[in-house]
């Protein structure tokens, strides 16, 4: 059973007019959000997006925008308390992330 997070929250946007269908977004996305075909990328399962920002950063035509960040409540709380950015408390321990 695939784990699904909250629906209709992510900030992912694709500007189809800028896309040339190179496929880079589909390559880097760890959640298979994009489908590319006929010279054009398409957002498939938008709610699966974790806003890692990989697609936007690797799109050579700047066709993708997303508010990238780490979905980490502890990091956000530490950021609010200590004035550091939310990403700073990302636990480097996560085994799957090695």
């Amino acid at each position: 059973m695939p784990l699904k997070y909250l629906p209709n929250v992510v900030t992912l946007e694709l500007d189809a007019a800028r896309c040339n269908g190179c496929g880079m977004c589909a390559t880097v996305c760890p959640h298979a959000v994009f489908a590319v075909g006929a010279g054009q990328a398409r957002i498939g399962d938008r709610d699966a997006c974790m806003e890692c920002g990989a697609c936007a950063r690797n799109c050579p035509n700047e066709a993708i925008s997303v508010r990238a960040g780490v979905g980490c409540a502890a990091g956000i709380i530490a950021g609010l308390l200590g004035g550091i950015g939310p990403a700073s408390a990302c636990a480097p321990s996560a085994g799957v992330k090695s």
Partner: protein
Amino acid sequence: MTGAPFVTGRVSTPAGEVPRASTALSWRDHWGTLFVRLAMGRMAYTVEPGLYAVGSPSPESPVLVSANYKLSFDHLRSRLGGLDAWILVLDTKGINVWCAAGKGTFGTDEIVRRVAATRLAEVVTGRRLILPQLGAPGVSAHEVTRQTRFGVVYGPVRAADIPEFLRAGMKATPGMRRVRFGIRDRAVLIPVELVIGAKLIFGVASVMVLLGGLVRWGYSVDRAAASAPGVAALALAAFAFPVVLVPLLLPWLPGRAFAVKGAWVGAAMALGLYLAAHAGVVNPGGRLELWGWMAGWTALASYVAMNFTGASTYTSLSGVYAEMKRAIPAQAVLAAAAAVLWISGRLAGS
């Protein structure tokens, strides 16, 4: 670190000697891994950045890029047995690929710097870098190519798939590109989550043990001491249960928000406590105290689960903000109710 224990020799190249890293993990590497996993989740466990060889690589051999977190590096080299390759270790401040990519330390600038510092262009003719896919949030492949004239290929998410990826002519199957969060992935996180949360819960338990001495018109050390073991046990249980149960049961817990999943675990625990108290198995004190514990357990389990978002592999920043905005007020109200119930219970029973 030329004397690093995993270095088994050197390979000479036009850019100087390059240490050869073993593809076998020693007992020392295994101990280090265990240590990092079990206790010291956040200690620095690093490898010297730079270029390494595995096997007997030639100028045409592939170049794999890694982080200088020793677990990342060990993981990678242990999967390369029988292969000839180069490993370019970036300086990610001892942080794993994914987290470092999120912070940008596994990023375009560091790749450009490290390619220049190691004089990689003199070592290899292939002019291609293989990056772990999970490094992509920090890297702009076309930017790396523009600045270094090295092409970028994103390899599979898991190091275990690298040999197959190379054999297939640097093609990853769709499965190799997906991040998973299976029960084993979740279970290995439990020890570190226990360590990270320990400070909070020992703090809460200590305060409660001290408050246990409150009597209506003053304070009784004897009373605090008498109730201390029971109070401490219930406070620690409030933390230990959700830290273990939430990761293990994640897909089966109702709701999508982690705070909701945790609240269900907490509610089930509270029900268990209620039944155990009525059966006389545990004695949390009077009725007010019991209800205080039940509210507190639910609030804390919800909070603990919410803090597990950062360890998961599928939560977005927007989603976590959205759930925090609703969950934190609810948790605060529940925690305040728990405190009022419990303290009035203590006073009433004194």
